[in-house]
């Protein structure tokens, strides 16, 4: 079939909400965009382990430590599901990791902020995982089969992440005045970066229209951001904490909360690599990868030895 017919068939297929599978014909630009999107998503999962990993050894109780460990382990799994989905498009995982480690690939800018007190772990679960869920749930219905299936697994595991974070916030907000102050401080620092997680405004998001046509993006950045705010404000009220936005107020007419201007200079600055922890995050990733080299090599050597022994026994 000629290219134009294939394209027509692909477009109809996607418009019909059918899934594209790895061996189906797809336009090059769709494949490239997906590889970029899925790998960025995968990178975000594993870089996202670092700010929280910082607190595993310092969690305030054994129970909290076990929960945080389970959560961070889930994020590693999410990375794996997503790298696997990307690989079905014809890239090697090692190439993707290389792009992350040499700075060519991006990941969510939220993970370039530091976790300086225990309440930050609460704020991350509640806000960052909350925003991630808002982004991820629609993707369970995206047009690329392996990506959609990976997102279903991710979303199933994700909901405990948000709850455990909210519970940390709740405990601290209902605790001593000092604990409540720590929770408020964490909210103050994580609120705006969480809103930035949804990406630039629709007006400044030039590729969104194509991605929405391809159904690898199902709602616009501004739509998802608004939904997140509408969902989160009442939760902050339950906590008795104040969202650090003097312009935040319910708009009866719109049926949504109005909110203040996001500091986009900060957003673009962090993306460019100048956030508080960009360098540290990549360095930690690179070190983990390099220090793990001997383990990967030893595993191959061991596997080869085991295979050779099996062959010997079979020949004898």
């Amino acid at each position, binding site marked *: 079939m000629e290219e134009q017919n294939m394209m027509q068939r692909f477009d109809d297929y996607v418009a019909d909400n059918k899934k594209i599978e790895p061996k189906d014909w797809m336009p090059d630009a769709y494949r490239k965009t997906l590889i970029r999107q899925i790998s960025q998503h995968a990178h975000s999962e594993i870089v996202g382990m670092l700010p929280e990993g910082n607190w595993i050894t310092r969690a305030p109780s054994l129970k909290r430590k076990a929960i945080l460990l*389970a959560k961070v382990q889930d994020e*590693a799994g999410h990375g*794996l599901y997503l790298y696997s989905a990307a690989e079905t498009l014809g890239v090697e995982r090692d190439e993707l990791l290389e792009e992350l480690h040499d700075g060519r690939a991006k990941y969510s800018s939220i993970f370039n902020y530091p976790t300086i007190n225990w309440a930050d772990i609460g704020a991350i679960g509640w806000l960052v995982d909350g925003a991630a869920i808002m982004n991820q749930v629609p993707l369970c219905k995206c047009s690329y089969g392996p990506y959609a299936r990976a997102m279903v697994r991710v979303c199933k*595991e994700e909901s405990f992440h948000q709850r455990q974070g909210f519970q940390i916030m709740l405990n601290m907000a209902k605790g001593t005045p000092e604990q409540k102050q720590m929770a408020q401080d964490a909210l103050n620092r994580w609120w705006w970066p969480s809103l930035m997680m949804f990406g630039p405004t629709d007006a400044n998001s030039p590729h969104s229209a194509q991605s929405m046509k391809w159904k690898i993006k199902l709602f616009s950045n501004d739509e998802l951001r608004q939904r997140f705010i509408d969902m989160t404000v009442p939760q902050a009220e339950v906590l008795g904490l104040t969202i650090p936005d003097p312009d935040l107020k319910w708009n009866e007419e719109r049926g949504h909360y109005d909110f203040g201007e996001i500091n986009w200079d900060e957003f673009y600055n962090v993306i460019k690599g100048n956030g508080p922890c960009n360098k540290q995050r990549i360095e930690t990733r690179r070190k983990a990868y390099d220090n793990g080299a001997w383990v990967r*090599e030893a595993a191959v*050597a061991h*596997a080869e030895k085991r295979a050779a022994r099996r062959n010997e026994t079979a020949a004898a």
Partner: protein
Amino acid sequence: MSKKNWPLFEVFIRSRQGLSHKHVGSLHAADARMAIENARDVYTRRMEGESIWVVPAEAITASSPDEKDALYTPADDKVYRHPTFYDLPDEVKHM
């Protein structure tokens, strides 16, 4: 030592006794035994299964999407293979 990438394995899990194994995803591992161990860690953390198969991805032969018409359209006009094709008199209550 030269760099060798671990091969890709497809993972299949039986969620409960009595059900068949179902494809859940894939992972890289040095060999099949390690693939089983890793599959346990990533795909059964919440009691999703009680039996795991791992298959080297390169051992799978798949039909090609281009063959779809040749393979599946012959079944299109054989509606008599479905029980709904047959009209039964009302008197027959169960069949």
